[in-house]
């Protein structure tokens, strides 16, 4: 075959488009990353895990419908609203949200480095911080799309029909709380992921070591946790009946909702800004 029989079609000359602005670049990275995240094995696994409380709620509903009290503490009947409050706090806020924050937040950049696809993002005419912020926003949306429907289903299954109306606004607060918690944990662990070589270990130690211990300790240490400020927003969702008094003791000495919102926002913005700065300055060496 001669070269003349090998026609070559060149792409027509395209004048270089202006580089996208920061927020335009963020939107484009978000668009690219969201689809990747939603259908990742990690998300599918988490969606399956979040099916567990739904199954539990179905069991509670069936037991309740059959006339049997699903749960008693010290001989006292625990109502559906209280069960929902317990699930919200202990399962979603204390476990699911930090887990998602650790696994997704630390992986925002680390996954791209490990998969060696970071090259394509970092050789585009966009600031590196746009890559981080775009992926972070995709994380918030992706995890919210997994967690919030699970909580809503649990709510409608566990809370008695007569209480759904009065509790609905509380549900919206709870959903906002979870989304905000995901955002704050995600920002913190995004920072850990950009500056640390073993971000997953660090993240797990923080969320399930330091935070757990600090919350049991008296004094100021707990103020260096995220969960301390999240709990200041939770009591809205906790009904004041029976077992709730036990929970109330856990939530003693919580700061006001305004203070909690301020510090959570401060942590979110501060850690995300530091992560963005680290990504701009750091070089990522891909293994050969």
């Amino acid at each position, binding site marked *: 075959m001669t070269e003349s029989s*090998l026609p070559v079609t060149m792409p027509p000359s*395209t004048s270089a*488009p202006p580089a996208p602005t920061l927020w335009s670049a963020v939107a*484009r990275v978000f668009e*690219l990353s969201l689809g990747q995240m939603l259908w990742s094995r990690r998300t599918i696994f988490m969606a399956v895990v979040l099916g567990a409380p739904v199954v539990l709620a179905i069991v509670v509903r069936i037991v309740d419908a059959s006339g049997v009290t699903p749960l008693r503490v010290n001989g006292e009947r625990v109502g559906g609203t209280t069960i929902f409050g317990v699930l919200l706090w202990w399962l979603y806020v204390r476990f699911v949200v930090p887990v998602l924050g650790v696994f997704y937040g630390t992986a925002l950049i680390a996954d791209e480095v490990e998969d060696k*696809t970071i090259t394509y993002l970092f050789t585009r*005419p966009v600031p590196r911080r746009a890559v981080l912020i775009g992926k972070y926003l995709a994380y918030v949306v992706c995890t919210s799309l997994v967690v919030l429907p699970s909580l809503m289903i649990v709510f409608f299954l566990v809370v008695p029909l007569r209480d759904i109306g009065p509790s609905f606004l509380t549900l919206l607060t709870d959903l906002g709380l979870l989304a905000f918690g995901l955002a704050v944990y995600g920002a913190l662990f995004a920072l850990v992921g950009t500056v640390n070589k073993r971000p997953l270990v660090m993240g797990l130690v923080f969320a399930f070591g330091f935070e757990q211990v600090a919350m049991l300790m008296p004094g100021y240490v707990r103020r260096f946790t995220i969960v301390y400020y999240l709990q200041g927003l939770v009591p809205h969702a906790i009904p004041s009946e029976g077992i709730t008094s036990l929970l109330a003791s856990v939530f003693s000495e919580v700061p006001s909702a305004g203070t909690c919102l301020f510090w959570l926002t401060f942590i979110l913005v501060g850690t995300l800004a530091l992560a963005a700065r680290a990504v701009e300055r750091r070089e990522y060496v891909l293994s050969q």
Partner: protein
Amino acid sequence: MTVIAVEHLSKWYGQVSGLNDVTVTVPSGITGLLGPNGSGKSTFMKLITGQLKPSQGSVRVLDEPIWGNHALYRRIGFCPEQDAFYDRMTGLDWVTALVRLSGVSANDAPGVAARALEAVDLVDAGSKKIGAYSKGMRQRVKLAQAIALDPDLLVLDEPLNGMDPIMRRRTIELIRTWARAGRSVLVSSHVLHEIEALTANILVINNGRIVAEGNVHQIRELIDEHPHTVFIRARESRALARALLADDGVVSVRFEPGAVVIETAKPDAFYTRLTEMAARGEAGAIEEVTSLDDNLQAVFKYLVKS
């Protein structure tokens, strides 16, 4: 005109030296960067595409410093060596997404991406997921994302690795046509034959140092003295080996699962024959051709000593 200028450029990875006090200028047109695996080619390319920060020295690309200068990236197209993709995306979606990141509007991006895929002969496969692509197709889709926006400087890290002979020749012609239109290309390879088909202007790199630069013919004879090893993945590898054994340059033949590894003393004649056979469909389909570089090490050692 100088498109790349580096001065006393060094890069260390901890205690390991990736590049060592390199001072070189790359003119416009096509320049080949030749060196064995681990010689510092990829480090050099990552430095001039702003992915790595120099440990020492300076890098200027298109007359501007590159590190942290993301606006300059819109004038550079980069095809990396690594075989890494978002495998669940189709080729068209992937190139479209990357083109969007370069600033092209949502309306224009699919058209720009489609034209780039057309240039590398991947239009038909554009709607397939990249995970289902062959090695050669993956190389081509990487090339497509690099050329899509008609950059002033194209940086290609081992772009021909794994391509079949026909596509290899076609890609060489694409790059040459590209340069004839007044743009610049820096292309790396560990195969002199490939570089020579592209340009006479080469930089030879080994152990993180530029050991030779200038005209390719000056080191041509040195390379030819050493047998050249080629890995060929083919559907009918035994029939292919039988056909190639007729060449007097073939020194040895070794079989691997679904492939044959041939050592030849006459690489030019060998590649020409292989391309002809592929074009005629002799001895079945050839899926992948990769040049192994073990024997080239001796040449680079010689260059370093001289």
